[in-house]
């Protein structure tokens, strides 16, 4: 078989080696570029990681928006956390006897209970105000 002067095995191996090096270089550049672009994008379009909740199929979410006037609130990362009270509730002076037991009776009727309306009688404070009731509504 005739071997061309320009296609010797040695030249072929050298060419393959150069191609390998070039490929490695390109891969390295691609990785570095991806990392740089990801960092830039992360700062340009803030998103947030979403914790997996029970029953949820969404593991994570990131987002971006190009509209300055439209707020996709579900994508914001500045959701203010729930705030604890600055002063904690104290034991009231007039807890009922039922309040001193760790077990409450089960309600038998959820219908609102009403009585005769209280008449408007703006008089000086003479009656100790009853506690305001906080319950389901």
């Amino acid at each position, binding site marked *: 078989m005739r071997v061309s002067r320009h296609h010797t095995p040695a030249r072929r191996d050298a060419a393959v080696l150069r191609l390998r090096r070039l490929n490695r270089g390109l891969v390295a550049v691609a990785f570095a570029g991806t990392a740089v672009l990801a960092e830039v994008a992360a700062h340009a379009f803030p998103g947030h990681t979403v914790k997996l909740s029970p029953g949820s199929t969404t593991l994570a979410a990131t987002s971006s928006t190009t509209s300055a006037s439209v707020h996709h609130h579900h994508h914001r990362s500045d959701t203010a956390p729930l705030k604890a009270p600055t002063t904690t509730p104290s034991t009231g002076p007039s807890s009922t006897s039922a309040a001193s037991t760790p077990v409450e009776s089960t309600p038998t009727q959820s219908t609102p209970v009403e009585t005769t309306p209280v008449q408007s009688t703006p008089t000086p404070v003479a009656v100790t105000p009853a506690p305001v009731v*906080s319950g389901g509504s």
Partner: protein
Amino acid sequence: MPGVAVADRPTVAADAVTARWEALGTSVVVRVADPTGLEPAVAAVEAELSAIDAAASRFRADSDLERLNAAGGRWVDVSPLLIDALDAGIRAAELTDGAVDPTLGDALLLAGYTTDWRELGRPPRDGPRRPPRPLVVRVRQTRAWEQIELRRTPPAARLGGGIRVDLGATAKALAADRAAIAAATAAGVGVGVGVLVSLGGDIATGGSPPVGGWQVHVTDDHRSSPTAPGQTIGLASGGLATSSTTVRRWSRAGQTMHHILDPRDGRPVDRTWRTASVAAATCIDANIASTASIVLGSAAADWLADRGLPARLVARDGRVETVGDWPTDGWPA
């Protein structure tokens, strides 16, 4: 002991520091530390409630919210107040991973909550109940609240994905916070007049409280008397909310329904706790946490403790558990 009746117009109680009336489909209580501040405080609260009703009522076809729900995914010009209320609803969903979800409008309609709950069928009191029938429940989108888009200037909103919004819980608590601020200002907060506003048992405070704090009795139903089984506490500041599956119940297809739905399947929650009371810096934070507690069930106590929120949880069998700094009132450890 029965609760106190309320009228459509503010009625001053014999103590001269309390006014009560009906609004937003629930009862309103305004209490002031100084009786001279009651009248301006009541006027301020009435104005706030009127505004939130026009913005966020699900039972008024002309409310901003209902115009938005009926818009078929188009942008709708709305009031800044509805933007605030929608924002609060989205925040609730984010903070609870969807346990409190403002996009349950369709699920509530499917459950039969189509009008003021007092006009719905009452649940049977006694006697055999019909065997439960499976509800037809639509498969819900995950994180559907992400379909709500808001624009501040000019104020407008859009609902994508065919969702329907109900802001019942968070809008009421938001209104309580706003009303308490307005009332305290009107009553003269600068001179130390404190105000408490209760909307259906969701309580917000402003200004200086009376000595010993505002006396609040937590129980299953906000229409109960202060002697009903529960606990009386002193609240010096911030907000307090109670959610319960024992109230706002109605009957549909032989099943007893209530208004706290599990966002995962759109059905009434029936888990560990029947009632949850939570204290927080604001009424809306307390409301978010109390509603989430009912939905989270057995995970609620740890969830509340992680957030530093004092709470009182009542199990379906009446067992009481307190969380964090909630006063135990001498209960056995």
